[in-house]
């Protein structure tokens, strides 16, 4: 009997040991993503990826590394891991902080944004393994239509993308101003190779509404900056994109 107990105990011990050894790398792998991302990657890629100037800007480097080395392609928040349980927490405050630094957002717009967040009936958040997080809130407008309020931020509180229904109409000039302010706040204005793109696509709009699309591209940083007002929705953000991919979007760099 003692021998049987001993055998069972040995069996369990070996099994537990093997399970521990094999399962341990799982949480470690998640942590190693962050280590790789924050410590190792900044020293790589300077030669074959972005320009040295772009590598010197944290936000530009993080966007590019996340895309190139981790393969996280979430430009519209689509491929992040959805996490229903995550609390909204200080997410709105981080957003307000960022927008408050832009000389663009009026008090009325800020109030409208706060109203939409406060009245959100349903929301989802998502995050990746290197600290970027996205939020998607379903809000009800005054005219009782459902609409989405979405934004994504980096771990350091830089706004990556935002989408909002807005009763105010934006002109092309407004969007250019918005992009200038966005570059200034994120520090991406240091890049001196931003070029204005021709956006050829014409999105569908309902009768009486308008659409304005503006975009810029930095070949050195391989970053695509856009600000659009389409059918009552304002959306702007930045994402890494290879120059060859611009053609797929039906946008083009001006001829030299």
């Amino acid at each position, binding site marked *: 009997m003692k021998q049987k107990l001993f055998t069972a105990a040995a*069996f369990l011990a070996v099994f537990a040991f093997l399970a521990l050894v094999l399962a341990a790398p799982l949480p470690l792998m998640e942590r190693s993503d962050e280590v790789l991302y924050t410590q190792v990657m900044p020293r790589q890629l300077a030669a074959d990826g972005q320009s040295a100037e772009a590598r010197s800007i944290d936000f530009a480097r993080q966007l590019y590394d996340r895309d190139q080395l981790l393969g996280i392609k979430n*430009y519209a928040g689509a491929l992040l891991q959805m996490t229903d349980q995550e609390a909204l927490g200080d997410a709105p405050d981080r957003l307000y902080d960022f927008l408050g630094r832009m000389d663009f957002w009026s008090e009325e717009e800020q109030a409208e944004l706060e109203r939409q967040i406060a009245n959100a009936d349903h929301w989802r958040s998502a995050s990746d393994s290197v600290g970027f997080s996205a939020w998607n809130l379903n809000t009800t407008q005054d005219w009782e239509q459902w609409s989405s309020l979405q934004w994504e931020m980096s771990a350091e509180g830089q706004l990556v993308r935002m989408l909002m229904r807005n009763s105010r109409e934006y002109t092309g000039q407004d969007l250019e101003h918005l992009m200038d302010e966005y570059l200034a706040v994120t520090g991406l204005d240091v890049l001196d190779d931003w070029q204005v793109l021709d956006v050829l696509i014409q*999105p569908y709009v309902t009768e009486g509404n308008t659409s304005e699309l503006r975009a810029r591209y930095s070949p050195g940083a391989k970053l695509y900056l856009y600000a659009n007002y*389409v059918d009552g929705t304002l959306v702007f953000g930045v994402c890494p994109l290879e120059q060859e991919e611009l053609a797929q979007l039906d946008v083009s760099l001006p001829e030299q």
Partner: protein
Amino acid sequence: MKRNHWLLAVALPLLLLAGCGAKEPDPGAEAPTPTPAIQIEEPQTQVLRSTDSHGYYTRSAYYDLETMTVKQWDLKLPDGYQMNGGGPVSDGQALYFVLTRQGESANEALVRMPLESGAVQILYECGEHEQIEVAYTDGGGDYDKRPILLRSGERRCFLVHRWTEEDGNSTWLYVWDPVSGSCEPVKRLGSHLRFWGEYQGRAVLGDSWETEEDLLQLDAETGELTVLLSGKNTEAARLFLRPPLLIRENFVCAGTMSADNPDGKERVYCLDLKTGAVRQLASSDDGYLLVRMQDIWDGMLRVRGSEGYESGQWYVDCATGQKVKGMLADESGTPMHIRAQLGEYYLIDVERGCTTDTVWMNEVGEPVYSRVALQELALIAKEDYWAGRPDYRIFEQEGEQAE
């Protein structure tokens, strides 16, 4: 004896763990049994399809049945024109495409490309406020609409929708005569007539705005319209004269939306034109709020149900109303997608087990990446498909066989 227990204690967990990582047998890894040579009879239908006795045609590729290879198109389009979203239809001698011109109000043209010469010839250029009627006649779905082309002996007929301030909307039957080369409107068929499918080889048209109008059958030889389903039939009018409709073989299927029903449920009904029997084939009670019909293959209706992020697909037998079991499905249980049929064979999409990233602009002009599972087209005998046997042959890229 003690040593044996130790050995057992170490070896068993190892074996267990090794077993966890063992690869499951891959059903696709087995070499499929070669399909016998295919014999396809000339179709009796007036409605041209994406297939003929030579192969299957998409907007960018040709799948050759004789060699089981796929060849990419390199079409020389007329200046200023580009291919629209859909593919061509074939009459065995030539392909017929709809082309579009960017940035012009009159921007569509119907063109013909003889299979032998490959020279593209414009048959009809739309004027302002005109459009060539397209529909999905095979299983390509909404993204694979093709021109409605009908045989009338050697002549070819097509439908043009026109709208003017004086006459309002009208749907016209046009005929192209290969002998004289003329292309003329021959008959005004109705106001908003739309192609919903075919019955007994003839196109079935219904008014997409006036839902109580009759369902009509068009004979392209004579241009005659006959009533297939009268709007005076109250049950027919209630269930089967409101779009969307799907008409294949002897079945008329119609879906009712949640907003149409007081209980907020969606339903799909089917009318058997041979027997007159009416059946409910699917509803929100099947597990999904939204229930939509996709296509009918040999009397089996493919249904797609969705609710939020969840969705599922299944087949229902139109003759019995029973769910079909045992057909060829992927790992998640979704029936393999049928694109078209060729005699006793289906063309199906088979996943290659790898993905590709593409970037595109969404409706608000944002760049979005999609990770798409790459697929290949394969040929399978119908009986193998319904029996769930993965006994298909994949079309090889041209030149691969020689390697």
